């Protein structure tokens, strides 16, 4: 394996979890039924929550604005279905915190036509107008982070964007969302690229795809329009290639400096589904109402890729696809980076790229944690070339400052490769998340103390 890939460009280290993609990658995207009650939390992206602009009892049409952006780093929210606002109250979110939210009762027999807004004309719009259009459409990163896309696309003063990388890697096991999007929404993707090129001023666009989606790569390559400088780059399969830092290294051989953003190496990375959404929504001035989600995992009966309205409760989703009696764990996102769901009353958010459900049988997670035997598997896995073994031992002894000062703790981007390979089952990345938050807290405490002086 390693030998065959020798000449192919990729990043250093990483892991190869079993892919489990064949179960859904041949299944075309299907529209999911509308749930009778849609629940929309306002905090479903990074940044300030959206601000509600509707009243209880009000009737809304699909695509109508429900909440406006709560600031620059925020996006508006549109009605995913036509219906009545039942209630405005706190709703649970996946993090366990409550967030203000809207309960929207779906009109049972509505045709669910989507409202048109003001289109953003590709030919005439300025980059600023495109960015505004992207914000107005409520678009956030669909690759998982749910970061408002217009903020990311805003090139800072003094920097320039040379290449736009479209992230079609989808390195998480089980998930096939991006795969299906690439196969079925090629035109939207290219349209999106047009907008993105214009908005960022990039000279070219590269679509990065892992070798296990060769069909998608071929499909896109064959359809590249004459008028835009797009190339498709196929890279070897390896987790976490989808992370932007790794992808940039794999595709361009550049390294994003520690603590920096991709723009420092003149690159912007956007997920394919995000790109497709931009390409589909902006010409119509619409807002985002639904997204493609892979629902899979051994506990799911009707696995597949579904187009699901934002706000559909998870319980409804699982009831529709049918699950195993013994279901014990559900993740929003893939099994490597996704978040485990404790409460089925939360709903689908914009950042959810997949729902994976496991039964107790399938989990079979070893219970016993052994001490670190310094086997080095984690060192060989860490794409950032950290020393998770040492970090783990230091974390165990709560030497958090030492971790940050001597061992680059803050460069860890929590991909979990180290935890995945560790034969002693040490919860390494879990330690690191905690350690990072403590280090950050200490740093702010120190700063405020200094300010107070």
């Amino acid at each position: 394996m390693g030998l065959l890939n020798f000449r192919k460009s990729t990043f250093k280290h990483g892991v190869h979890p079993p892919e489990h993609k064949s179960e859904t990658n041949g299944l075309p995207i299907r529209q999911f039924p509308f749930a009778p009650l849609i629940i929309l939390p306002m905090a479903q992206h990074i940044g300030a929550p959206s601000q509600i602009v509707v009243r209880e009892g009000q009737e809304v049409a699909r695509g109508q604005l429900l909440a406006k952006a709560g600031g620059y780093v925020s996006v508006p929210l549109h009605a995913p279905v036509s219906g009545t606002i039942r209630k405005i109250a706190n709703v649970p979110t996946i993090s366990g915190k409550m967030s203000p939210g809207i309960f929207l009762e779906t009109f049972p027999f509505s045709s669910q036509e989507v409202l048109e807004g003001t289109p953003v004309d590709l030919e005439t719009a300025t980059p600023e107008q495109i960015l505004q259009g992207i914000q107005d459409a409520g678009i956030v990163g669909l690759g998982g982070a749910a970061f408002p896309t217009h903020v990311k696309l805003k090139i800072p003063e003094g920097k320039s964007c040379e290449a736009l990388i479209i992230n079609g890697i989808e390195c998480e096991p089980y998930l096939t969302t991006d795969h299906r999007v690439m196969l079925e929404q090629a035109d939207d993707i290219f349209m999106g690229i047009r907008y993105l090129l214009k908005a960022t001023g990039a000279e070219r666009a590269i679509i990065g795809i892992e070798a296990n989606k060769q069909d998608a790569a071929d499909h896109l390559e064959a359809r590249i329009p004459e008028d835009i400088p797009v190339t498709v780059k196929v890279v070897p399969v390896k987790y976490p290639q989808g992370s932007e830092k790794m992808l940039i290294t794999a595709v361009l051989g550049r390294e994003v400096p520690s603590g920096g953003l991709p723009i420092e190496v003149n690159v912007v990375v956007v997920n394919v589904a995000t790109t497709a959404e931009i390409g589909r929504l902006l010409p119509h001035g619409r807002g985002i109402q639904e997204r493609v989600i892979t629902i899979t995992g051994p506990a799911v009966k009707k696995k597949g890729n579904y187009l699901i309205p934002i706000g559909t409760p998870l319980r409804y989703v699982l009831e529709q696809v049918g699950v195993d009696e013994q279901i014990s764990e559900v993740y929003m996102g893939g099994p490597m980076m996704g978040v485990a769901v404790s409460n089925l009353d939360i709903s689908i958010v914009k950042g959810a790229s997949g729902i994976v459900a496991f039964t107790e049988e399938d989990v079979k997670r070893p219970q016993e944690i052994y001490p670190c035997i310094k086997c080095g598997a984690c060192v060989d896995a860490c794409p950032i070339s950290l020393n998770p073994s040492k970090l783990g031992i230091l974390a165990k002894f709560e030497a958090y400052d030492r971790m940050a000062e001597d061992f680059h703790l803050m460069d860890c981007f929590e991909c979990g490769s180290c935890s995945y390979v560790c034969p002693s089952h040490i919860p390494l990345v879990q330690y690191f998340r905690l350690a990072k938050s403590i280090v950050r807290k200490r740093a702010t405490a120190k700063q405020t103390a200094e300010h107070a002086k």
Partner: protein
Amino acid sequence: MLNRTLNISTSPHIVKGISTDSIMQNVVWALLPVALFAVYTFGMSALLVLVTSTAACVLTEHFMCKYSKKKSTISDWSAVITGLLLGLTLPPNFPLWMAFSGGVIAIALGKFIFGGLGYNVFNPALVGRAVLQAAFPVAITTWYPAFLPDRFFSVSVSTFTVPFMEPAIDAMTGATPLAAFKFDHVTTSTSDLALGLISGSTGETCALLILLGGLYLIARNMMNWRIPVAVLGSVYVLSGILYLINPQVYPSPLFMLFSGGLMLGAVFMATDMVASPITPLGVVVYGVIIGLLVVVIRIWGGLPEGVMYAILLANAISPHIDNLIRPRVYGTTKSLKRS
């Protein structure tokens, strides 16, 4: 059906199949052919030495845990490896009470005082052997000939020495190839060495079976292949250079590779990940240091064999190797030095 309470785990939610106890178990499987061949070569005495040292290690581990009010850790199998390897480095006719003491020392002094599995800074089995060698230098250099006709039915006269008493000197002793070379300049043929048709420590005689065990572990991704390659490679190259300079004085590189405890040491003991560096480059440096020390001690030192000392010294150096050799962290310009 959806009213079950869900289990909340933190990502990653899946793990690779290998676990520490299974690695340890597999090392034991890989050592078994070596041990069986030892019993075939040296008979009953060797079997008793292996069983005794293993039992001593496991029992010590158990009682040490009990004493410190911890859960017994014998189920991780690492004590079995320690005991087996200790037994394999001892002469087959070693008195059992000494082998037992060695096992106790290996675990108590080599592992427990540092905090148990994963924290030891020296190879426990070799700590046990080093203490035995310093305590009973005569017994540990009294060798038993291989392939005695009645080896399966009788044991060496020293095997059942009364505890704490001096062993009787066996009438039949064999000289090891290294001692024969060092003191009498007699070389043993490489094929005899590789096949194990010689006398020596219980487990060091059959180089081929040792290599086979190593290959199995490497194939199963349970052993770092760089270490044995670096150790054996550096010994080969260094002794090769000396041999080219003067073949009359210096032994041939193949003789160096296949004699003494080098093969067992390089494949099964230098590879103990706990006491070796962790980075790929660090591990190579570590291996080369071992190789260098082995050549220096064997050729210019007073003792005929130095694998054990070389590994222990390299163990002591490995924290420094880890400190000095750090891969460049992604997105930084130079490898981070200690503040």
